[in-house]
């Protein structure tokens, strides 16, 4: 469908100082969401505060429910979508884990719920600093997972999440992950789109199948060995189709909002002529990019890749991009215990993706920033340094913990 764009300048009505949570709440306000289920847990809570204030001030209308726990919160969201409403929920860390039963069922029932995950360490101990293990826990079950680097991206990507999740070829729930504190809490100037522009970008949610007395269906009947393979395969194929839909959604978004998300899946920073590259997700991009510039001043041709969509994983695109470098340093802001080479979650995703690459860059892994421990520019420079000196032979240490007292 040809998209005649609202004139670019008028796609935005104003700019405001917002943190990541508030940015997402604007997207929810603009996206004609019907049902919001809230439950407090640091660091994502403020998105729900702001949404409630919008409702109280009549800035938009949605049914707003204070749930009795994350399990109920996410079930409320899931079943609101099942009757044809657009819903928004969110959580962090151990709250996200308490909702896991609902999260998985939402994906396997192919209900396009959108959730914000304010990434936070899992319990125990009850640390509320950022770690990515919460959202990563869903990486196999049929949620589309995307990480953002800035509050602006958080707003834009939440709108994109609805467009992608609800596409008839996809129909998969989508989680937008923001690093706790660094993104959820720090405030930046954010451009806020107009309702007209968002309405043009995001069609109303009108699912082919829903609980509707005019066309009775039964959703999620009990299955046995006669059926489960086929059901899993249907969801598996949706996961394949999601990539194409993401490209289309971003193209439409750029046209309407005049943004420049050329590559929806990852952003490349100074990689054109780079020999050594760091790759990570979320707010680690800030110190990493600064370190790239510092190392280039020292004559080391470094670069940084910030991965956004972990699911669907951009296998071909990332393999093509990474195969150009001599060395790659994967930064994991998550812990992984007893894994192959004791590497982190993102490390294994990247190494697996590169296995079939004709060129064989050396791939190392850095565990850093757990529980919101600062990752400084120097930390990132050290990572680049380690990668640039690595020989890539059998004996070499694969994983280095950066920033731990040892």
């Amino acid at each position: 469908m040809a998209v005649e764009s609202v004139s670019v300048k008028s796609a935005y009505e104003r700019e405001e100082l917002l943190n990541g949570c508030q940015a997402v709440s604007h997207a929810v306000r603009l996206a004609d969401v019907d049902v919001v289920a809230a439950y407090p847990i640091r660091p994502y809570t403020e998105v729900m505060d702001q949404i409630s204030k919008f409702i109280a001030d009549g800035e938009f209308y949605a049914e707003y429910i204070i749930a009795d726990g994350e399990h109920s919160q996410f079930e409320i969201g899931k079943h609101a979508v099942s009757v044809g409403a657009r819903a928004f929920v969110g959580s962090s860390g151990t709250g996200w884990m308490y909702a896991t039963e609902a999260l998985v069922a939402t994906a396997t029932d192919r209900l396009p719920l959108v959730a914000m995950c304010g990434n936070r360490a899992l319990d125990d101990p009850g640390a509320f600093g950022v770690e990515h293990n919460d959202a990563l826990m869903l990486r196999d079950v049929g949620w589309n997972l995307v990480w953002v680097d800035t509050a602006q991206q958080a707003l834009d990507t939440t709108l994109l999440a609805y467009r992608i999740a609800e596409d008839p070829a996809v129909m998969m729930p989508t989680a937008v992950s923001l690093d706790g504190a660094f993104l959820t809490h720090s405030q930046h100037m954010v451009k806020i789109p107009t309702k007209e522009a968002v309405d043009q970008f995001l069609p109303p949610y009108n699912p082919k199948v829903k609980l509707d007395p005019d066309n009775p269906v039964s959703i999620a009947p009990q299955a046995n060995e006669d059926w489960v393979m086929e059901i899993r395969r249907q969801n598996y194929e949706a996961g394949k189709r999601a990539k194409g839909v993401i490209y289309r959604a971003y193209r439409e978004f750029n046209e309407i909002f005049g943004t420049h998300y050329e590559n929806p899946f990852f952003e490349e920073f100074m990689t054109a002529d780079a020999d050594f590259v760091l790759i990570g997700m979320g707010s680690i991009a800030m110190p990493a990019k600064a370190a790239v510039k510092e190392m280039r001043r020292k004559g080391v041709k470094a670069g940084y890749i910030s991965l956004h969509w972990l699911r669907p994983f951009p296998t071909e695109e990332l393999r093509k991009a990474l195969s150009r470098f001599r060395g790659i340093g994967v930064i994991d802001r998550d812990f992984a215990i007893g894994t192959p080479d004791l590497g982190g979650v993102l490390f294994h995703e990247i190494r697996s993706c590169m296995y079939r690459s004709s060129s064989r860059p050396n791939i190392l892994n850095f565990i850093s920033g757990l529980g919101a421990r600062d990752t400084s520019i120097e930390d990132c420079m050290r990572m680049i340094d380690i990668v640039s000196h690595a020989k890539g032979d059998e004996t070499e240490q694969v994983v280095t913990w950066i920033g731990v007292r040892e």
Partner: protein
Amino acid sequence: MSLEQARMKRIEIHYRGIFQKTLAKRIGGDLVKIAVSQGKVAFSNGRYSDSPERDGIPAKYFVYMSDELSEEDLEAVCGAKLEADKVDISIVLDDTMIKGVEPWAWYGIRPVNDRLVANAVQVFVSNRTFDDILSHLEKKDFAYRIGILPGEASFSGLWYYRDDGTDVRVLGAVARADPDAVDIDHVLEYVEKKYGKEKAAMAKKAYEELRLRDVRPGEGIVWPYQKPVLPKWTEFQEGVVVEGVKGQFRKGPRGTPRNPHFKRGTSKTQRPVIRFDLCTKCTLCWYECPDEVFDVTPEGYYDPHYEYCTGCGRCAEACPVEECIVMVDENRFDSYDSPWEMYRKDPKGYIEWVESKKGDERVVPSYVTGMGMRVEKGKKVPAKVR
């Protein structure tokens, strides 16, 4: 020699869910231990999708044994499947199952001899004749044998087990039906040690009592039910969605729209026989039926749809008019046709037919299944044909 051709015995036990759960498991377990006592490798399992078992729904238990394969290989050949696709010995603990078994939706109504291979043997605990049984079984293009161990189906509750010796009698019968599986000496030795002399004698008597008959290729019937074809993953709605029951309600037989994929008729060992001439249209049979099988006729009578009736007996218990609804042995019937239509065509003929089917005895089951039952005289109520 492929593993498939190795010397082994694959045994299935057809039973009524819950009522014969403990019985089937004991028989299966004992067959394993007897085979082991004969130096064989053996193991048993239930059919996983039968669980959770439901009162009356056909279920299966399996035993596999071999004196040639290792346990690992036997497990690979037989154990890695949820249901045996070929069996050498089949035991049917309730002979009403010869009308077909439908354990769950989309499985279809399958003949009890569905999985037999050439020269297999199927043993029925039954008081019926060979011909009567054969007139219900699907014809095969190979020879096999059927055996009859005289006796009534032994039913228990979930907690209360009716220890009437059926388990040891079946062990004796298997030894006779296929001595290559378990031999009578090891059966008797095992039974005596575990259950005592009296039970061993029962096993021996069954060994002698079992009657066997060769079945020639082509003997039996053309099986009337289709086996459902399950759709490919591209052929059904995504999002784990199935169509709800659709259709317009209308009064009269088959007037209620129903789930076409699961008939339940094979769950019953007895069916409600209705004397429409005595019916006062009080609605209680229709009201109490957990399976919604009664279609209200334009005249206000209640016509049971036997394809869906599970034979629970609540209608008979609720009916206030003596002899108006009586539960009768399912074996006496061979069709699921609407009784109301038979009655309308020929009221007197229907009533005579019904009374002949009911016979003189009325069985009153004890409150706890398996604790026996009273047999009373049925009252002959003359036809009140208006």
